[in-house]
């Protein structure tokens, strides 16, 4: 198959470009800890029995270190428990999220916290809130007629 010389150069350019993107993503994800949200292996929870299943039997924000917290959150139609979270500036929060009914989104606007709350599964992501302010947390996955009213706040003092 004959390929024009300039096309060969273009294809090489394209492959190099894609390889650079993948390398940057891979380094940040697997060596710098900037990873996608994910669950622990085989940690399933029964969405109908969350009130009996730790940690979701006691949703809330718990201090686990110096300005470090674990936020155990249940998404439901149409809100989040706990409703409203307050932390000091610089707080590092480990979010642990599930749903008690359908799939919901958990997006903290202006940050890179943006994950799916799936019934039966536990999703986790960690974020450090350096900037004080009031953050809007909303559901960004259609979950029924009240979807546009499903939101809460995170306040960083």
């Amino acid at each position: 198959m004959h390929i024009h010389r300039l096309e060969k150069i273009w294809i090489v350019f394209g492959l190099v470009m894609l390889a650079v993107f993948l390398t940057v993503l891979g380094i940040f994800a697997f060596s710098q800890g900037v990873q996608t949200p994910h669950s622990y292996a085989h940690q399933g929870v029964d969405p109908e029995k969350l009130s009996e299943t730790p940690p979701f039997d006691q949703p809330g924000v718990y201090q686990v270190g110096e300005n470090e917290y674990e936020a155990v959150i249940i998404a439901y139609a149409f809100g989040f428990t706990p409703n409203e979270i307050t932390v000091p500036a610089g707080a590092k929060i480990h979010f642990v999220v599930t749903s008690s009914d359908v799939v919901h989104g958990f997006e903290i606007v202006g940050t890179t916290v943006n994950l799916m709350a799936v019934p039966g599964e536990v999703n986790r992501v960690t974020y450090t809130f350096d900037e004080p302010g009031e953050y809007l947390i909303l559901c960004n996955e259609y979950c029924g007629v009240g979807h546009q009213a499903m939101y809460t706040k995170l306040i960083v003092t």
Partner: protein
Amino acid sequence: MANDVKRQPANGNGHEKEPALWGTFVAVLIMGSLFVAGWFGAFALFLERN
């Protein structure tokens, strides 16, 4: 017309019958630069918010 610089197929290997594709080459490189700029711009925004 003026500027007939590229009148003949202007590849480095002059005797090949390859057609002149410099315009194509420049066009895809411009497109490729948009891809690179767009991607790194988005990644910078991502890191800033992270």
